[in-house]
């Protein structure tokens, strides 16, 4: 099937999408330097800067979360590919307001490679930067290095960004990011592939009547393919796996995020969330905060990510703090 996408020249997709994104939210963000997405109004001197990197084609992730109370700068790479170290280093220099920079990296091979090279260069320059790696996808198995960073970036950006905005030190912001990271788990489910917008090729194959639990962000093979199930059955399987992995006990407080992959409708996401809510209630687990929507997508891939995170009073306070990021406004 030929690709049906509103694009111009494939090689211009990333600069054009960034241009359009910046033009559509001029009060919150602007492009600076080599196409870095930055806050329209830079943070005050003496506060920690928060920077992230990641491939494009996952909008609104990750640049949609640049704003007061969240990220200072997002370095967008090519489609599904991490940006290289030169632009990441540039972003870290720009986001250093005198109190150091927290560099939040999602665990994917290319992102981590770029980030490690960037960290070496930054340290050689004497920049005060610390890296927080998110890796909460339980499909990777028990080794944390094999767990990828999925929609869990959202609470990590949010709480670390709030801590930075409130004047927390670099060590404080790092501790908050890592605490959030340790307490979250995600699983992705896919029911339909996406086409790569530059090549027009499908990024994975999946039978018409199949779904796959444990799908990553781009169709990396996960834990299991099976015949398509109902929303309730799917929510039950996925939630049980997450609760078991995070060892959630009755009475504990959870943040739940249901993230649409791109082609799955809000209608479906709400039906899934409804079942998650029912199960948690039956188990006596407190659902204290929730988000249902599209935070990181993969083109017209159909499916969703379910994320659960154990919250404490401080994490909830930071989650509730204000943000003017275009795709996560909290007043």
């Amino acid at each position, binding site marked *: 099937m030929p690709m049906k996408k509103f694009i111009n020249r494939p090689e211009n997709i990333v600069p054009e999408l960034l241009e359009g994104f910046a033009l559509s939210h001029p009060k919150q963000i602007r492009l600076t330097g080599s196409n870095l997405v930055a806050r329209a109004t830079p943070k005050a001197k003496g506060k920690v800067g928060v920077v992230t990197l990641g491939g494009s084609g996952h909008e609104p992730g990750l640049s949609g979360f640049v704003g007061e109370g969240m990220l200072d700068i997002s370095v967008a790479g090519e489609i*599904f590919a*991490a940006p290289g170290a030169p632009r990441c280093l540039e972003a870290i220099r720009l986001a250093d307001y005198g109190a150091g920079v927290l560099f939040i990296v999602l665990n994917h091979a290319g992102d981590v*490679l770029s980030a490690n090279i960037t960290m070496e260069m930054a340290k050689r320059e004497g920049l005060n930067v610390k890296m927080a790696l998110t890796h909460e996808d339980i499909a990777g198995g028990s080794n944390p290095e094999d767990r990828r960073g999925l929609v869990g970036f959202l609470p990590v950006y949010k709480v670390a960004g709030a801590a930075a905005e409130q004047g927390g030190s670099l060590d404080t912001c790092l501790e908050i990011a890592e605490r959030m990271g340790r307490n979250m788990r995600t699983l992705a489910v896919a029911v339909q592939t996406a086409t790569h917008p530059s090549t027009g*090729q*499908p990024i994975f194959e999946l039978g018409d009547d199949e779904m796959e639990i444990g799908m990553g962000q781009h169709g990396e093979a996960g834990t299991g393919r099976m015949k398509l199930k109902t929303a309730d059955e799917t929510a039950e399987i996925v939630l049980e796996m997450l609760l078991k992995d995070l060892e959630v006990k009755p009475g504990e407080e959870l943040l739940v995020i249901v993230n649409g992959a791109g082609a799955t409708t809000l209608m479906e996401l709400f039906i899934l969330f409804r079942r998650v809510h029912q199960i948690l209630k039956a188990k006596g687990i407190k659902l204290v905060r929730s988000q249902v929507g599209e935070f990181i997508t993969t083109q017209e891939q159909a499916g969703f990510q379910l994320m659960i995170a154990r919250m404490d009073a401080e994490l909830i306070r930071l989650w509730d703090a204000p943000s003017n990021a275009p795709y996560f406004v909290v007043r």
Partner: protein
Amino acid sequence: MKDGITRDDFARMIAGAAASIRAQHAMLSQLDCAAGDGDHGTTMLRAVERLEKSFAPGSPEDLKACLREAGWNVLGVDGGASSSLLGTFFSGMADAPACGASIGASDLAAIFEAGLAAMRKQTKAEPGDKTMMDALVPAIQALRAAADAGKSVIEALRDAAGAARAGAEATRNLTARYGRAKLLGEKTRGHQDPGATSMSLMFEGFCSGFEESKGESGNA
């Protein structure tokens, strides 16, 4: 020194590698569809274009400076792991002590070894893991062996290209253990690794580029 390599020879080697990738980039993207997201050819094309530009007229006369700039430019391709590793490879080459104006097979081996050493600081992938290392490591070993045996630069490059090709072809029977493809595990068996294939194409290009370079200077 008749058999030595100059900065201009190196530029021809890079041009050869670029031509080789340019001719096969669609095939590389196709290979990448099996376990990746089908963009490896596009990424490599952008990387070799930047390599060529780094050696174009007006770039530094000094090979070391050229390689350092080439590495930085390839890192800036923003093409994920492939361009980060390839950029590290070229910028690492600049650290070789032998990186001078005119170099022989042994010096060339030392330059490539320095590039590989820089990469190994960034990745734990080894031959057998179904990555670009499956072509790169045997290629550099063959280059070193040829140099130690007193072979000429072109003979050494031919040996390296042969070893790279064999290494890339052997990835067909391997299971991926690194990067995105790792999660596909056994499903990756039967598909040749795109990273190893592009490395093999680069060495083929180094070889033909160098042959052309010496062929022309011989005619002059």
